[in-house]
């Protein structure tokens, strides 16, 4: 089998992993004349976009799609009849360098089916990163999938070469995982996430100490995970509580939500349907509310419903449930309160706070602050605007925001 055919099979096998970030790592470059590559400051670089709206930043492939596990939702499960392939270590290394030199990619995201044992699989994955770093002095971005329960020395080595490590939690609840992925063990996944966090903390603390020798390098871009949405019956409430737990426990940089999507040669046990893309989008918005807007996992979803509304965004839905807290005076409200106004992004709030020190904010200014008027106006008081008191009390307010049902675009 030639490399191009292998690439087709092993990229196809890797595409259900949503993560493609290349941001948040240490700054490196090759201006010392030795080696190839650099990391991008700031938000990372997407070198292309596929028609599914997803960023193509890394060469995202599996080392092999042969797998001992039989996870029902997975295209690579052992009982599937998809064609199998396996890259040699050198093939992945060469592809990465060839693509990198042409500026197609920021680096490599390597994962693998579980073959032979956790340690054997992890060792194979690590040896690609080792070769890239040690022999080719590759300074680009590397994301490695961590195999739960792999030996500590292998995990330490993975962290030495990789910018980011990830382990997928896969399902929002332990029961779903046991049902859909019988060989996977959520306890083992969490224990390994815990081990990663201890190593991340250790590297971070050693980095702070001035006197000590250089700390062991360990995944400067941290760890992330992915949850599949819509393959089980878990509610959005459950999903967000699981995310909050994971963010708090393991200091994850990101939880990716991946709408369960039709796959070739699907299992009989899991009937296929179009992926719940709007739901996935709402979950990302809710995730942002937790991480950047000061919302608690427990207050985002209406407890009686258990699910996020699909027709309006979760912050607007929260505001409609808490009308007594509005309208808010933009001239005096705290940062925390401003962040809770529908249509106010973090940057808009920063601009409001800087601007209001110098001058008052008027209706005509909203456009220049990039705030959608229709969404924000019922909830705010400006120097020349006060919403009608009937508006906030009226039942028609929610109707006003209901958009025509349509799939929304979301880039990440």
């Amino acid at each position, binding site marked *: 089998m030639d490399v191009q055919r292998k690439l087709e099979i092993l990229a196809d096998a890797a595409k259900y992993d949503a993560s493609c970030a290349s941001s948040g790592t240490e700054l490196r470059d090759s201006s010392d004349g030795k080696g190839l590559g650099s990391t991008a400051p700031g938000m990372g670089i997407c070198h292309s976009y596929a028609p599914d709206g997803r960023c193509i930043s890394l060469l995202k492939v599996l080392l092999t799609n042969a797998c001992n596990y039989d996870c029902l939702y997975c295209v690579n499960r052992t009982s599937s009849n998809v064609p199998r392939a396996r890259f040699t270590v050198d093939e992945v290394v060469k592809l990465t360098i060839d693509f990198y030199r042409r500026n197609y990619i920021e680096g490599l995201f390597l994962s693998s089916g579980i073959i032979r044992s956790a340690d054997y699989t992890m060792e194979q994955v690590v040896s690609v990163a080792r070769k890239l770093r040690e022999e080719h002095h590759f300074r680009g971005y590397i994301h490695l999938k961590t195999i739960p329960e792999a030996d500590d020395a292998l995990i330490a080595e993975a962290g030495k070469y990789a910018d980011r490590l990830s382990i997928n939690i896969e399902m929002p609840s332990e029961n779903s995982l046991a049902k859909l992925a019988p060989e996977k063990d959520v306890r083992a996944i969490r*224990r390994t996430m815990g081990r990663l966090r201890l190593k991340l903390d250790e590297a971070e603390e050693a980095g702070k100490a001035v006197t000590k020798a250089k700390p062991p390098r360990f995944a400067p871009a941290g760890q992330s995970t992915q949850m599949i949405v819509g393959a089980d019956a878990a509610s959005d409430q459950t999903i967000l509580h699981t995310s909050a737990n994971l963010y708090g426990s393991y200091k994850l940089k990101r939880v990716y939500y991946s709408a369960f999507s039709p796959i070739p040669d699907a299992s009989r046990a899991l009937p296929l349907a179009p992926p719940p893309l709007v739901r996935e989008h709402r979950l990302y918005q809710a995730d942002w509310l937790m991480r950047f807007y000061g919302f608690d*996992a427990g207050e985002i979803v209406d407890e009686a419903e258990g699910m996020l509304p699909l027709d309006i965004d979760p912050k607007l839905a929260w505001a409609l449930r808490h009308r007594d807290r509005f309208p808010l005076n933009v001239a005096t409200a705290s940062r925390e309160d401003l962040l809770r106004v529908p249509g106010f992004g973090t940057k808009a709030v920063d601009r409001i706070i800087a*601007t209001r020190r110098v001058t008052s904010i008027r209706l005509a200014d909203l456009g220049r602050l990039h705030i959608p008027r229709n969404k924000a106006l019922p909830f705010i008081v400006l120097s020349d605007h006060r919403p009608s008191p009937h508006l906030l009390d009226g039942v028609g307010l929610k109707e006003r925001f209901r958009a025509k049902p349509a799939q929304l675009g979301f880039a990440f």
Partner: protein
Amino acid sequence: MHVITLDSETDFDGWRKAARALALNGVDPRGVTWTVRGNEPELFEAEPDTSLEETPGTFNVPAKFVELAKIAILHRNPERFALLYRLLWRLRSNHDLLEIATDPDVAEIGAMAKAVRRDEHKMHAFVRFREVGRESKSHFVAWFEPEHHIVELAAPFFARRFADMPWSILTPDLCAHWDGHAVAITPGVAKSEAPTEDRLEEVWRSYYASIFNPARLKVKAMQNEMPKKYWRNLPEASLIKPLIAEAERTTAAMVANAPTEPHKAQKRVEEDMPRKAASSSDSIAALRSEAADCRACPLWKNATQTVFGEGPSRAHIMLVGEQPGDKEDLAGKPFVGPAGQMLDRALEEAGIDRTKVYVTNAVKHFKFVPRGKIRLHQKPNTPEIKACRQWYERELASIKPDLVVAMGATAAQSVFGKITPINKSRGRLIETGEGTRALVTVHPSYLLRLPDEHARAREYERFVDDLKIAARFLRKAAHAA
């Protein structure tokens, strides 16, 4: 009317010099026309600007303005020089002007700078090198059409990234070249100068097609980030239309296709390397593995793992704490976090070797609520303490220590089987029957929480004193034996 002619589209220094002189001469922005050499409207050609006097002196502007101006001046909008001068003019009377995000000039300059940055970012992303020549003689050449005057701005990124290969980026405005030592800028060229193919492009295209998931078509999201104007120079873009056209059919086929017979794989499964053996093969190891799956109360759900006791199976002293904390939950070992370090220090001062005592907790899962990136410790309640007490009892029966030290109220509740106030019971040996005695003291994390330094030192001394009672007891027991 003053006419200022700059040397080039990106002549920031020229703009700065002229703007400074204009401002010092009090020239109103409405009285200035800005142009670039080679682009001057014919009208002005014979009208060199001589009316400005060399005015010595300088004035202050916010550093932020200079940064913003350096970027915004790269915008292709011919009005940018005038806009920048107008801002400079207004800044002299209002130093805080840039903070007013709602000011039309501030908003416009911000939008211009943002557009330039975005174009630079997209150039970093969408430049596609093609290899000319092979192996050691190869040279990588790209053709790119930037929206703004960003070639000089964007070039250093490529120099840092591709330091070990010679490359050229050709554009209609300017070209950038790297020879391994320095970036050289030359005039723009025609597209026909650039290579038209590369041996890897077929492989790259098949990657692009394979990584695309046809079941989640989001064409608008793609176009927002990768607008059509870039497509003509991206080798993969020729696939976009056919992939979109195929997507619906492919997805429908995936959903409609009857599942095939499950494939019976020939697995080759090997055992992982032997892990560090459990500390002993006795009943404590068996208890530990049994407790790993404990579901007696709901605390297991949110925790990482059961944190069981640790220490010699024939220890004379058993230390009991409240529950594992953040670090303990991650490591799976008791007393390894900040409270553990405090305990280690106190044990050492009391003359007790931690490796000779058995250390455990009354509750064996971490109880917490997540708050952003941290977890807030929560005190276990009575049902949780009761549910977990079986493990303490079984540890006790297995270790058979001479002395149990209960640290804190939760531990005391578990050890005595009832709520036991610490201050009334601490500092003395209490008979618990069956030949075991108990000693009550505070939990080391209580010491960590005391805000007052003096109180902390005093309470730490009392804690060490309590542990010394245990140490004396241990010595007596050893002596008696």
